[in-house]
C-alpha cells in the first residue's frame, strides 16, 4: 500500500481566550494563498490541502498559531494565545523652539 496524499477541502474555526476571532488571517505557509475568518471565527480554505501542508493563523495582538494538516484532516481548530506584552509609552515630543539635529525633547 502506498500512502496516498489525498487533497481535500479544509475548514475550521479560530478561537482565542476572548472567544471566536473575526478577521483572523489563515495562510498556507510559504504562499500568499489565504482565507479570513468570519464573525463566528469560521473559514473554509480556498484551495484543497494535503498532508503536511501548514496553515499559519494570525491576528494582530495574539500569538500566531500553526496547524499542520495530517491524515484525513478536514476541520481544524487553531487557538490564538494572548501575547504577554507590557504596555509602555514614550513618544517623541516636540519642543516649541526646535533645536538643530535630532529632536526628541
Amino acid at each position, binding site marked *: 500500500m502506498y500512502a496516498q496524499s489525498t487533497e481535500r477541502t479544509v475548514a475550521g474555526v479560530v478561537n482565542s481566550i*476572548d472567544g471566536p476571532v473575526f*478577521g483572523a*488571517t489563515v*495562510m*498556507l*505557509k*510559504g*504562499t*500568499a*494563498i*489565504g482565507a*479570513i475568518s468570519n464573525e463566528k471565527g469560521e473559514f473554509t480554505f480556498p*484551495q484543497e490541502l494535503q498532508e503536511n501542508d501548514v496553515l*499559519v493563523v*494570525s491576528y*494582530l*495582538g495574539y*500569538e*500566531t*498559531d*500553526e496547524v499542520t494538516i495530517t491524515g484525513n484532516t478536514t476541520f481544524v481548530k487553531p487557538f490564538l494565545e*494572548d*501575547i504577554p*506584552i*507590557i*504596555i*509602555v*509609552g*514614550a*513618544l*517623541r*515630543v*516636540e*519642543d*516649541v523652539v526646535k533645536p538643530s539635529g*535630532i*529632536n*526628541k*525633547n
Partner: protein
Amino acid sequence: MRHIILLLFFIFTLSLYAQRSDFKEINFQRADNIANQYKGEELYNLPMLVHNLTATLHTDVERFRAIYYWVCHNISGDYDLMYKTDRARKNLKNDPESLAVWNAKFKKEVFNRLRHKKETLCTGYAYLVKEMSNLAGLECEIINGKGPTNKMKFEDLDGPNHSWNAIKLHGKWYLCDPTWSSGVIDMSAFLFEFNYEDTYFLMEPSTFAEDHQPLDTRWLLLAQDTLVIMTVPKVKVSSRVTIKQ
C-alpha cells in the same frame, strides 16, 4: 605606544558594533519605494501586507527596511494612549496586581486602536515591527527599557517607559526605534506629526545607548562578540514567499 594600542582597541571594537554602515553597499531606495507604494494600506491582512512589502526584495536587510519604513510612515503616535499609560503606571506603581489587571485590559484597547485606526504608542510600534518581521522570516525582539523624553534623564524615570526593537540580520543583532523614527508629538496641540528620523534605523549601539537603557543590559549590544542571546521565534514563516499558480 599605549595610546596606539588604545586607539587600535577602539577601532577594533567599533568595527564590531552592528550598525547601519555594515550595509553601506546597499541602496535602500528600492525598499523605501515599495513601502511608499503601499502607503495607506490597512493592517487587516498583515501576512499579505508583509508579502507585498518584501517579496521582490533580495536581502534580509532590505526586507526589514521596507517593513520599518512602512510602519514609520503609516502608524501614528497617539498622545491619549501615552497619557493614559503614563497616568496608570504612576498611580499603580506600588500595586503590581492592579497594574497587571490594568495592563491586560488596556492591551486590548491598544491593539484595537492599532488595528482599526493605525494609531499607537511605543509598545504598538515595537510589536508591529516584530510581528511583521517574524512574518517575513526574520528574528526580531521587543526590547523594554528606559527612553527619556521631554528633557528627562534616565534617573528621572522610576521604571521602564519605552519599547524598541532588536533585529537579527545576517547573523548580527541591530538596534532600531520605530517610535522615535516615526514622528513627534506637537505639545502645543497634543497632536502627532509624521517626521521621519532615519538615524534610529540600525543606529550604532553606543549612540543608541545615550537615550535607550534596556532592562536587560545585554541588549545594549555593546559587546556583540560575547553576546549570547537565545531567542527562538515561535513561528517562523519562510521569507521566500511564492505565489502558487
